[in-house]
């Protein structure tokens, strides 16, 4: 077990592609870090640099108290779980688990004990003599996990280990990975493009975009206070609504509506406003702040997603299924739940009113539409 330090790490591929640029993350001992971001943002590249499968162009990676830039992957004391599992097809499950230990000259009795323990934890005992091709996807996934666990390494590295499983299995394996990591307490870096997986697994999230860190933080902090419009639209499902508004003093003009914020935001004029779909309330007629023209509805069972437009900007509201949909609707939101972002840089703008639970829905002044 060890802490991991990633300091100003960049990856420039031959041909000049910068896949990762100047990333720094300090990972505490036993922490579960999830790297999340869209396809091609450099998550795998960063993970592979930690693993030693990819050379580090700039910066340094420290595992424990050792800079590992020049250390062979086998000597970094890490174990990796691959997306396609990368099980050795000619070896039985037992041999797959034992291979890494055997090559490290672990005594036979110790190997047997560790394999038996991992097999018990992962419920793999019935399959130890089988070849990987005779296993289901979920079982292969567990063997891949087992191969990492038996090594008792300083760190686990996961590269989208669940993305080849069906949705239901993914949810249960997700729980299992979290449970196992808690139990063995090994520092973990986990790569995924699935924000839900990221939210549920992470102690801390690292949101990446275009090879750069957008935000590092605990899942709920990232969810409640996204640092940029990119994070806002990436974390949370459905994605946060981002619309353009205009700030005049303590008033926000949003489409046809004018909302009194009760406090000033440290910027004026055009601004990007973020509204979470689940923070929006729907009202019959014009009782809400924002007149809302409904386009279509997605039924999800527990809730429904109502797609429509405010002014000329598309917006999604998530509302409980039991609330009947009005003919003419309007939306309201607690001002404390509004997010503001710089309309050019996309950076979050903090303001005094946020997070404060508004006692009442502020007075509304609906302009004629």
């Amino acid at each position, binding site marked *: 077990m060890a802490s991991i330090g990633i300091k100003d790490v960049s990856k420039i591929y031959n041909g000049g592609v910068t896949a990762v640029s100047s990333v720094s993350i300090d990972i505490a001992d036993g922490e579960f870090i999830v790297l999340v971001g869209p396809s091609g943002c450099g998550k795998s590249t960063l993970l592979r640099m930690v*693993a*030693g*499968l990819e050379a580090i162009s700039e910066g340094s990676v420290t595992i424990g108290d050792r800079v590992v830039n020049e250390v*062979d*992957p*086998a*000597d970094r004391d*890490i*174990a*990796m779980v*691959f*997306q*396609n599992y*990368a*099980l*050795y*097809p*000619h070896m039985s499950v037992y041999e797959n688990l034992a*291979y*890494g230990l055997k*090559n490290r000259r672990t005594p036979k009795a110790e190997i047997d004990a560790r394999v038996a323990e991992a097999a018990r934890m992962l419920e793999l005992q019935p399959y130890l003599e089988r*070849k990987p*091709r005779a296993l289901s996807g979920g079982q292969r996934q567990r063997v891949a996990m087992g*191969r990492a666990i038996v090594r008792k390494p300083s760190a686990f590295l996961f590269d989208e280990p669940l993305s080849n499983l069906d949705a239901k299995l993914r949810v249960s394996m997700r729980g299992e990975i979290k449970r196992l990591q808690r139990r063995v307490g090994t520092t973990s870096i986990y790569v995924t493009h699935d924000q839900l997986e990221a939210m549920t697994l992470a102690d801390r999230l690292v949101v990446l975009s275009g090879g750069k860190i957008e935000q590092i933080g605990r899942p709920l902090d990232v969810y409640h206070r996204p640092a940029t419009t990119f994070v806002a639209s990436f974390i949370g499902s459905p994605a946060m609504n981002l619309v353009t508004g205009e700030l005049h003093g303590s008033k926000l003009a949003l489409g046809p509506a004018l909302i009194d914020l009760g406090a000033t935001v440290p910027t004026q004029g055009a601004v990007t406003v973020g509204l979470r779909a689940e923070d929006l309330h729907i009202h019959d007629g014009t009782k809400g702040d924002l007149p809302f023209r409904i386009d279509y509805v997605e039924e999800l069972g527990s809730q429904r997603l109502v797609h429509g437009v405010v002014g000329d900007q598309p917006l999604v509201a998530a509302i409980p299924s039991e609330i009947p949909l009005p003919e003419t609707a309007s939306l309201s939101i607690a001002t404390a739940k509004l997010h503001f972002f710089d309309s050019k840089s996309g950076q979050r703008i903090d303001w005094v009113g946020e997070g404060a639970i508004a006692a009442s829905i502020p007075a509304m002044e609906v302009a004629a539409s």
Partner: protein
Amino acid sequence: MKRVQFSSPYLPYLFIAPQMAIIFVFFYWPSVQAIQSSFYLEDPFGFGSTFVGLSNYSDALGSVQYQSIARFTLLFTVLVTFLSLGIGMLLAVKADAVLKGSSTYKTLLIWVYAIAPPVAGLMGMMFFDQHIGPLVKLAAFFGWDMKVGLNYNDTAIAMIIVSVWKQIPYNFIFILSGLQGIPVSIREAAAIDCRSGMRRFWTMTLPLLAPTAFFLLIINMTYSLFDTFGVIDVMVKDKAANNPITLVYKVYMDGFRGNDLGGSSAQSVILMIVVFVLTIFQFRFIERRVHYN
């Protein structure tokens, strides 16, 4: 397996008919002829033939000369097979390490190797030319007066070197493409699990390459037994007298130079049986241990 439906039940047979015809004309028919004539003593001048039973076989197997040729053939086959497979694999592994990812380079290299075998064969022969052969000159430099075609051992060495040399490109292509077929993530997982590259080769690369290697083993044995005829012919130049030859060349010598069609047929039948037994043995005992994905 995917089942394909044909509109007529005869259509599939029609499709394989040309192949069957070729196999029949060039394999079954001559085989039957050979088996038949191996029981007869053919008059060298074409005046009929006499049934002699198994005496052609007992003559061949009992002859000291035949036995020594058989021993040489065995040695030759084993050496050529393992050297050409071994060197081909060594080169392919080295090339594979360089080739990771750069596909244009890869295509170029394979293309060069794909046209190489006949050219390589010709070059191999020229290496040992008595007058201009650089290897003969090299040997002379070290005080070894190489007499290919005259001295038994010199000829044997030259034959083996040229035969191996000719077969390396073929093995190289197959092994290289086999290596490229090993998933990158498996190699990477192995790199994390095992530090020693040598050990990884024995425990990971080689077993995953086994289907290719097994296929090549059969191909190379067949090559050493039969396809080396041309090499031997050039080196021995019909003067088998004091030179090493293989069983196939002996079949040719006895049949076409010695006009002993019966004896030569008996020898081909013996060879046929040897190949048959070898093939069955390989598929029964080796293939079972080979992992197919």
